[in-house]
């Protein structure tokens, strides 16, 4: 029973998902029930968040092939916070557009559950199955507006890319199993530090790692596996896009961190250059593509690809005992946490504009400041945070990630990243310019935002500023989390 207690956040979500599902079966579907399902889902997410918060202070331990440590708990907090915000902001959006509200909220909670397990999984089987659960549920959510061509296309593309990626990943994992004879990440790590490890076997793990990386990179939308992302992000229902680009990414990075930093720590000579290359490729491709976009949803999609590249820098620069407290891993966590609130905020702003004007093109943002000054202000803050302007959460995340890279003396990597940040700032500022300096003639009437969105925007704004201006608490969390992983690692 004690071991089950360690799974409390997951159990809460499971109960929530099944409850919503059964409620939906038990009662006749009518369009009014969606709000209550959303409310129930939000409540369960909040309770799960509290359980994860409680887990932060536990001693690291294991239960059912899952690590219950501060790292997992912090990722869970990030994910649950993101999902709860999406539920708060996007619930009304979804409920008004679909008849299948019960199924939507069930899937929503199951996606959260999958990400939560992924944060702690330390066994290749569990990692694979959970990635499948997350992916398959996400395919369905992406295609949830099945009558809309774009949504169907989004789901289809996601599904086709995803099924190939996960098959390739499984192939790679099977090679690792063939070499090690165990699926447990700690045993994998132990195997590769053996002194009598042959050089051939070490080299042989490069293709295996590359294949496995394809699956992880797909989930985190890293180049060259990001092509699905813009189409899927654009076509999916906006709440789904929001969690795909934030929470889902956090889970993917968590599992990558555990796989590389814990499982393959002894092979860092092999995987660090690979990840560094992917990082450069991802941020450059994402930013260059984002430059030319006129559709803001698509622009944010490409920018989220670019951000995955920055986050990956933290993994490249991971170090067990860093002098300055920037060990790379805490940069990743901090970046993910700050990016979550910022990007959820940005997408919710987008959703607000979409709700009221029905368009996500650049023109819809023309003169937004006159129609919804608060919204425009907050959106500006989120864009600045995405660009990494000081005093915002995004800055702190970039600072830690870049700092870790500098400390490793990866100057070329940092140089490329800085150039990229400059490019990114340009297109973020373009949106801001449109909002403020657009002509006033075609500015429409004032926008009225629903209460849920207002609340979400406010929370995101406060969180972004909180992380940017007064970070000690967050830094404390991410340092505990990264230290618990890194002290156990055999670098």
């Amino acid at each position, binding site marked *: 029973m004690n071991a089950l207690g360690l799974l409390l956040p997951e159990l809460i979500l499971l109960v929530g998902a099944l409850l919503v599902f059964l409620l939906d079966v038990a009662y006749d579907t009518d369009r009014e029930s969606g709000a209550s399902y959303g409310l129930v889902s939000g409540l369960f997410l909040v309770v799960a968040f509290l359980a994860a918060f409680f887990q932060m202070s536990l001693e690291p331990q294991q239960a059912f092939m899952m690590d219950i440590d501060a790292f997992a708990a912090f990722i869970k907090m990030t994910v649950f916070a993101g999902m709860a915000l999406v539920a708060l902001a996007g619930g009304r959006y979804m409920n008004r557009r679909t008849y299948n509200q019960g199924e939507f909220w069930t899937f929503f909670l*199951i996606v959260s559950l999958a990400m939560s397990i992924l944060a702690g999984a330390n066994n290749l089987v569990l990692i694979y199955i959970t990635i499948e659960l997350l992916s398959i549920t996400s395919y369905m959510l992406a295609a949830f507006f099945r009558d809309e061509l774009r949504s169907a296309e989004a789901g289809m593309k996601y599904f086709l890319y995803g099924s190939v990626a996960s098959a390739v990943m499984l192939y790679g994992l099977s090679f690792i199993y063939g070499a090690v004879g165990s699926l447990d990440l700690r045993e994998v790590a132990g195997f590769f530090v053996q002194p009598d490890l042959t050089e051939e076997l070490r080299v042989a793990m490069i293709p295996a790692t590359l294949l496995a990386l394809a699956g992880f990179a797909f989930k985190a939308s890293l180049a060259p596996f990001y092509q699905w992302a813009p189409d899927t992000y654009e076509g999916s229902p906006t709440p789904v896009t929001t969690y795909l680009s934030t929470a889902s990414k956090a889970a993917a990075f968590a599992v990558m961190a555990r796989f590389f930093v814990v499982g393959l720590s002894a092979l860092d000579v092999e995987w660090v250059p690979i990840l560094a290359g992917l990082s450069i490729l991802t941020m450059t491709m994402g930013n260059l593509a984002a430059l030319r976009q006129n559709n803001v949803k698509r622009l944010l999609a490409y920018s989220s690809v670019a951000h995955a590249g920055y986050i990956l820098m933290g993994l490249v620069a991971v170090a067990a005992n860093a002098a300055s407290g920037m060990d790379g891993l805490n940069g990743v966590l901090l970046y993910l946490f700050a990016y979550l609130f910022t990007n959820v905020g940005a997408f919710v702003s987008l959703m607000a504009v979409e709700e009221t004007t029905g368009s996500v093109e650049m023109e819809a943002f023309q003169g937004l400041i006159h129609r919804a000054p608060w919204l425009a202000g907050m959106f500006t803050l989120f864009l600045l945070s995405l660009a990494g302007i000081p005093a915002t959460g995004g800055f702190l995340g970039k600072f830690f990630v870049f700092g870790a890279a500098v400390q490793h003396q990866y100057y070329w990597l940092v140089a490329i990243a800085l150039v990229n940040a400059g490019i990114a700032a340009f297109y973020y500022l373009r949106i801001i310019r449109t909002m403020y300096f657009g002509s006033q003639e075609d500015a429409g009437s004032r926008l009225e935002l629903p209460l849920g969105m207002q609340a979400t925007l406010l929370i995101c704004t406060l969180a972004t500023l909180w992380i940017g201006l007064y970070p000690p608490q967050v830094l404390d969390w991410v340092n505990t989390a990264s230290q618990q992983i890194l002290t156990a690692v055999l670098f």
Partner: protein
Amino acid sequence: MPTLPVPTFTQVVFVLIAAFTVISGLGVVVARNLFHSALLLAATFFGVAGLYVMLEAEFLAVTQILIYVGAVATLITFAIMLTRGAMHGETNPLNRQWGKAALFAFLFLVGLLGYLGGIPWPAPFQAIQADEGLIARLGEQLVTRYMVSLEVMGLLLMVALVGAILLARDDKP
């Protein structure tokens, strides 16, 4: 004059099963009729089950037949039969990419052979005694150590089922 090695009974059976598997696998790709491809796929699954038997993994073999031949392939044939216009004739034509695909597949095969052949894979850790206790232990592991994995799989199947119906059903409630 070198003496020709006389193949043992097991080797002969292995070669037969392996040839059957490979030829059916090739047939899946080459067959011009979609339904024939599906049937050959079932045959391939069957051949793989035969290989499992050769490895003395009867449980795995029977499970393979049960799931892949009995359920997956049946479902595929069922889906093809339900699809209009995919019944007879050349329903699985070559497209313009087939040359590149064949080349890539060949290179992949060569690379894989080189890769797998060039590595000293560690020997398996222990021989497993094929007895009934094996299945019992497998079951026990599934509900203890792999409990979360098992539950996640159950959840995955439920979600897939609900989602498939949701996305495919015709009427609006």
